[in-house]
């Protein structure tokens, strides 16, 4: 029996992702949350397309696009933050509306910096998202050094490692507790359903069936609502800049033109001959 493999991100988003899948009629999946097994097979008939086994693969959130790119999973659930940082040639099918948060640039509360224009070299920005942070700084002409850290980003300004951070925040609590103040929104983030473009076609029926089921339960959210600033929320590769907006300045700031060199790596995806 053919299997439709779906890479799920372990950690923060897993619970809401599983809950969403169950509401869409795929499941039961509660065992998946409380077990240490990394591969879960859901027999045919438990939601999804008849005749298909759903195989869930639990991966590190950062690795989900890689699994999908290589075809180790047909589908995946990945955060937009990871997708823009990793720039993998995978197809985004749906905004699942879970795992919502914002990627922001923040500085210590006591800092004299009020806006991006106040940032000068030799400023240092610590982040888990060096690629996104670099492009953000280029887009707004911020001259700063990007420091790539693996975690505990909030600590960097406290110990003098960096003057600012680019990181994701759900409620802002962690930032506040660490004495940080948001000065710009980099990117609104949510979990996306992604697919390997070729395998999507191979398993088209099953994928469409699952997408339709998910569409029934995904909350329709105005992409411009619920965030500090407006602007297109499509931070697709190559049009990276379209989605940027500086917090507090309203939607108008997000209308920037594409900067040269933002063409991204879509290399060869467009034309491979």
């Amino acid at each position, binding site marked *: 029996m053919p299997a439709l493999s779906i890479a799920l991100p372990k950690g923060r988003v897993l619970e809401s992702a599983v809950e969403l899948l169950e509401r869409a009629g795929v499941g039961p999946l509660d065992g998946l949350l409380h077990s240490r097994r990394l591969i879960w097979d859901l027999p045919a008939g438990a939601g999804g397309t008849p005749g298909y086994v759903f195989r869930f693969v639990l991966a590190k959130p950062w690795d989900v696009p890689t699994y999908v790119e290589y075809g180790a999973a047909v589908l995946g659930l990945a955060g937009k933050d990871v997708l823009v940082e990793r720039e993998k040639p995978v197809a985004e099918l749906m905004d699942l509306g879970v795992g919502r948060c914002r990627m922001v640039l923040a500085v210590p509360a006591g800092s004299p910096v009020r806006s991006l224009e106040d940032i000068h070299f030799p400023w240092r920005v610590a982040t888990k998202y060096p690629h996104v942070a670099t492009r953000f700084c280029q887009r707004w002409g911020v001259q700063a050094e990007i420091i790539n850290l693996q975690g505990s980003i909030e600590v960097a300004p406290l110990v003098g490692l960096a003057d600012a951070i680019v990181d994701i925040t759900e409620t802002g609590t962690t930032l506040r507790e660490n004495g940080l103040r948001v000065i710009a929104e980099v990117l609104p983030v949510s979990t996306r359903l992604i697919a390997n473009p070729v395998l999507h076609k191979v398993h088209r029926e099953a994928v469409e069936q699952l997408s339709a089921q998910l569409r029934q339960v995904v909350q329709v959210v105005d992409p411009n609502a619920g965030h500090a600033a407006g602007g297109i929320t499509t931070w697709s590769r*190559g049009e990276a800049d379209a989605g940027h907006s500086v917090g507090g300045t309203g939607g108008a700031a997000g209308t920037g*033109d594409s900067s040269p060199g933002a063409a991204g790596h879509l290399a060869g*995806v467009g034309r491979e001959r």
Partner: protein
Amino acid sequence: MEQGHGQDQDKQARTGSEPSAGGWPGRRIGSEPDTGPGYESDPGRGDELGRRAGSELGKGVADIERMGEVDIYEWPYTRVQTPRGMRDLLPDQVKRRRALEAALREVFAEAGYQEVETPLLEYADVVAAGNLRADEASGATTGSFDVYRLFDPERESLVLRPDMTTPIARLAATRLARWPRPLRLYYLADVFRFEEVHAGRLRQFRQAGVERIGEEADARTGGAAESRRDAADAEIVALAVRLLTAAGLQRFRIDIGHVGLVHALLDAGGWQPRHRRALRQALMERNQVALQAVLAEAGTENVSAAQQAARWQLVELPQWCASAEIPAPAERALSALRLPAVDRALQELHTLLQCVAAAKVPLERVGIDLGLVRDLNYYTGPVLEGFSPDLALPLLTGGRYDHLVEQFAPRPEPATGFAVGLDRLELALDRQANSR
């Protein structure tokens, strides 16, 4: 942390559980030196290799033990790896490749195509002329890759050819200008692109492909040219199917799309330039989230009903995918727009499918994918993409490019063609063999 990792490995070795979990299966290390192009350049991996060699895998395997003792930063010999994205072929691999190439040559020759060779290096101007990818609105390029550039001692700027279509267009416009049309040419050639190396992408890779350039003289007068062009596209599709079949691939499909549809819908939607750019990018990436977001962001103010209808159809395009026919609901919705350019593209696809069927191509080998958007500046009509369920990457790509030859000569000529990546084709054949 590094230390802890090592202990973990040791524990695994002692308990004997899952010997190959979480990393490289041990057997690969000695037997397939080319599976890991860069253990020297990746210290983390090298360390792991060394530690494993000492603990769980090393017993009785001489080369592994030796590698475990070598400090990778003090490699005593000359640099031994090939440049990133480039590979050696060992005798068995060469033998196999030549056999595959012989099979492909036979198919090309049978279809009346003749082989050409062109230099590895072209003047940078020639490659640039073939690069039609400059975005008309912003000047930025989309879907581009970097090329290898070099200067010869006379300061001429040269480029290692990134594809064969441009050199062949140059040939067609110059040295083969007086040859009877259509020109039917094929090649088996290495091309070079400076791309990120991942998921099977190489920087030097071999392509087999065809170009069918120009039409017979009388075809340029009036309506006959259209149908001849459709026939040419069908010839190319049929040839692609025959080629992959001859290569021994059992499960594959050639999907057909039409960039004319995308252009027509983009034009009819009354988009702002920045939305247009975002849409083109999103279509190429098949990013449906981005398409919807641009649609929402563009709003409905000052948008006519006709424009709005075209907008909806544009963002729906990636959904229309079916085997061997245009999905009926798509056809209805698109026809209802009453856009001549859309109707023309649909008509071309219909004729193309009829011609393909007439050429006795098995129907299950052909699919329609209206969301298939390859480079929008380069292609001008039907585009194709061949894929196999055994490979998560496209195998074969191509389409109609009517504006390339005129970059080299004042005389425009219709042209169509495709290329197959041989490294990928071999990978798909390997997977097919292993899955049995």
